[in-house]
């Protein structure tokens, strides 16, 4: 066949043409906050599970409320994205087993009680002032170590589900080659974990936890790099649309942002800084964690935007 030289279409639907741009800032922000909260829930759950909650300054007491706020902000962003807002309740009159978004909606319904239960372990003073009754409830929760274990485990599990779901939401879209990888949920989960570790590190009061989080974050960053390599290898050994999708990030229009903000400033440099810090070559500062967090946010933006840009388009033009 001759080279395709001209392709014209009369279609001109808003946010669909000349390329898909339906999802704007709200979705990446939601995905990022969801991933961050997921990571924080896993960390908090792990701390509880591993008995760290016996330390009174354990991060597991500050994480759940922050998560609650972030998650609500994320959901608000998602709500802002809806074009038919008055109908949002329709999400909860049905469960669509094949729809990741339906799963997500219901997971969120479970996440809130888990976070609240976590909060109940040690409500802040201002909460107690507002609702004195909370002390009673909190007492009840703390009476049973069994409850505490459940809280830890449920936060970890729901955190995993939440984190994975943010990736599955996109990877289920076979329509956009860039999202079309079964590793996307791993990427988002690890990235969420690393951002959460970095974030918790920023406010952790417990020295040992801080150190642990920094080390864990280094681990997450290494895994994240590895997942990236796997994803790209997968794409590059696949069909044209997938190769071209990978090229969008590697060499194409999204490459500068990708290499500089996601890989460079978001993973490699903070990894080096934190490696030096955990080996006590330099002091811990907020710089590396902030870079990781920003990197995580940029990652969501770039994946959503480049993903929408990627297309099956060429598949029948050989």
């Amino acid at each position: 066949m001759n080279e395709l030289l001209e392709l014209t279409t009369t279609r001109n639907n808003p946010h669909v043409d000349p390329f898909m741009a339906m999802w704007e800032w709200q979705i990446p922000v939601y995905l990022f906050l969801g991933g961050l909260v997921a990571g924080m829930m896993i960390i908090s759950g792990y701390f509880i599970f591993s008995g760290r909650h016996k330390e009174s300054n354990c991060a597991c007491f500050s994480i759940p409320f922050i998560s609650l706020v972030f998650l609500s902000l994320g959901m608000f962003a998602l709500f802002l994205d809806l074009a038919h807002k008055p109908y949002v309740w329709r999400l909860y009159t049905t469960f669509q087993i094949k729809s990741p978004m339906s799963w997500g909606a219901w997971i969120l319904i479970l996440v809130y009680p888990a976070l609240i239960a976590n909060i109940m372990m040690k409500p802040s003073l201002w909460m107690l002032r507002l609702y004195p009754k909370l002390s009673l409830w909190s007492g009840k929760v703390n009476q049973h170590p069994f409850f505490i274990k459940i809280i830890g485990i449920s936060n970890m599990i729901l955190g995993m589900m939440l984190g994975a779901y943010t990736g599955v939401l996109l990877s289920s879209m076979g329509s956009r080659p860039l999202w079309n990888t079964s590793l996307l949920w791993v990427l988002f989960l690890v990235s969420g974990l690393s951002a959460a570790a970095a974030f918790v590190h920023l406010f952790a009061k417990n020295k040992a936890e801080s150190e642990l989080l920094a080390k864990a974050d280094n681990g997450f960053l290494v895994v994240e790099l590895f997942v990236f390599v796997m994803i790209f290898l997968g794409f590059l050994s696949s069909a044209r649309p997938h190769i071209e999708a990978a090229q969008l990030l590697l060499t194409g229009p999204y490459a500068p942002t990708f290499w500089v903000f996601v890989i460079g400033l978001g993973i490699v440099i903070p990894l080096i800084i934190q490696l030096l810090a955990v080996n006590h070559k330099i002091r811990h500062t907020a710089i590396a964690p902030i870079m990781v967090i920003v990197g995580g946010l940029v990652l969501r933006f770039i994946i959503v935007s480049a993903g929408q840009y990627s297309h099956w388009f060429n598949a029948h033009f050989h």
Partner: protein
Amino acid sequence: MNSISRRRFLKISGATVVTAAALAGASKTVVKAAESYSKPKGLQIIPSYCDLCFWKCGLLAYVKDGELWKLEGNPKDPLSNGRLCPRGTGGIGAYFDKDRLKSPLIRKNLRGEEKWIEVTWDEAFNYIADKMNKIKGQYGPEAMALFSHGIGGNFFKHLMRAYGTPNETAPSFAQCRGPREVGFELTFGDIVGSPERTDIENAKCIVLIGSHLGENMHNTQVQEFSRAVEKHASIIVVDPRFSVAASKAKYYLPIKPGTDMALLLAWMSVIVNEKLYDVEYVNKHGFGFEKFASEVSHYTPEWAYVETGIDPDIIRETAREMARYKPATLVHPGRHVTWYGDDAQRSRAIALLNALLGSWGRKGGFYIPYSFSIPKYPYPPYPEEKETVHNPDNKYPFATGEQISTGIREATITGKPYPIKGWFIYGTNLLQALPNQSETIKAIQNLDLMVVVDVVPSEIACWADVVLPESVYLERYDDLNASPFKEGFVGIRQPVIDSPNDQKPNWWMAKKLAEKLGLGHYFPWKDIEEYLDTRLKSAGLSLDELKKEGIIKGPSKPIYLEDGAEIEFATPSGKIEFYSTQLEQSGSDPVPKYTKHPEPPAGYFRLLFGRAPVHTFSKTQSNALLRDLFPENELWVNSDLAQRYGIKTGDKIKLKNQDGVISDPIKVRATERIRQDCVYMVHGFGQKSRQLRSTYKVGASDAELVTQYKTDPLMGGTGMNVNFVTFEMEV
């Protein structure tokens, strides 16, 4: 090329910023005005016929709860077979057009300044009648001229004849199909007519010489063309641009613009020299064949190659291809043929090629049309008329049938052979339709009265003294349509919805104005229904039935020679004139000869133009439905050429023509689908009427760049493909 750069090629023919003014929204505003009286509930389906172009397809209008919903073709209609073309389907947009004229206007300041006083109909008619009476008194009635395009002008034609002027014209002759009709009439003694008598459907070989069917959406032709494609007709397309039709062709001949005559002569020489013509037909019907044959036989394909750039082997092959399928080979006569000023001769060459193939009067060639004959209304006789003004001293000896519009314009400028002081303009946008806008404006400045009847504030309306707002076709009755066709039929245009404001139909205007002019007795009918009823009754039909059916067919007749149809060659010899003594006597070439036309100087490109399927000339750009599909025209530039000039698809550039006229910015479309010595755009854009807000200066106007034109010495047609443009980058 990777996917991204490919995606960049995605050309979106629409503005990226979306104006989400739903059509539904538009309908609401219009409906409000009419809400005072109660609307019929439920669905009404009312037949009428289309006016988005002059083909006049039968339609069915769907009106739901009193609101106009959609238009479909009338299945009874032989022209459309129940399927309208995209413009016809989008016709409701004419009703909803936000830029419509709402009330009569009289000019406040200088001509062309677009400052108006809204007046009542009575005031408008008084003003016009007063001026017309003055003109009649001072210069005689013949100092009024009527420019009228379309069937809606019939009652104004009647009015002007009653008033006493013989001067009436339309841009559909000297700017459109005039040369073709003259070329065919000189050869066969009859014109091709509209709708064209081409039997495309049954043709086994179809030759399209710049007829871009599929972009040119004349409904029947496109429908028949697609049927021919389905039946694997052999299609030969000759066009400097790879048209839509070219993509369906077996042979695409990328001819150098302006050299078609060379190709035609070479084709004829092959057919004559190889004795491939229909010998029996030529012997029986031909006149002067020997002289013709000896003359054309010199034009070898090799000679033609030098002129046209077309491979001589392909010329031979295509000539034989045509001969193989004769007489079911149709060399399409084209329609808009005013290209280079020798167009009547080129059309005659096409007629002669068809004559060789024996296709005139034959199935798959040119059928013999007939119409449902319906007597005219019995009007009183018109006053005696003066000589017309368009063709003094018979300068253009074969300007027959219709008058030369530019001739009337010329007389208006010079005052010779006698002055023209009033223009009455109906349904034609002379600034877009006539070549050389400055001459048109110069003529307008000489007028004592200029009246424009239009539906929107068009470019020509800008220059008027009085603008009369007409109801769109969906809101009015017009005269009956009984076009000559394969079947005899009569179609009715009737109102399907009320006019939203103070717009009025043409018949009402003509009658009222006649009364003001003291010519009321020329309009003896009470209203148009009475007029139509009278005409229909005299043909044994009833208005009520026609209103219900939309179309009534007449008894059928044979349309091919082989089926026993009668043919008459109304030429001096009574035969097909291969050699034309008429032409010889007038000092012209009795057998067509090749004229070399000037080529663009270095750095310049020939400006070509044509149709987009969803637009009609300059009259649909403000129709929101159609505009949505094709909001602005683009400049087709060969991709290699574009690369050399560093311009790419989507860039906006201006064009400068050989006379220094600079166009509005137009988007580039770099494409492999055109030669490097020409550029192409869709006609009708770049309009300069500020009141036509939706389309003001959108895209570029080819008409503005057509400052040069070459007048056909036989009939006064204005060849307009003779302008050269260069790119002005700084935009």
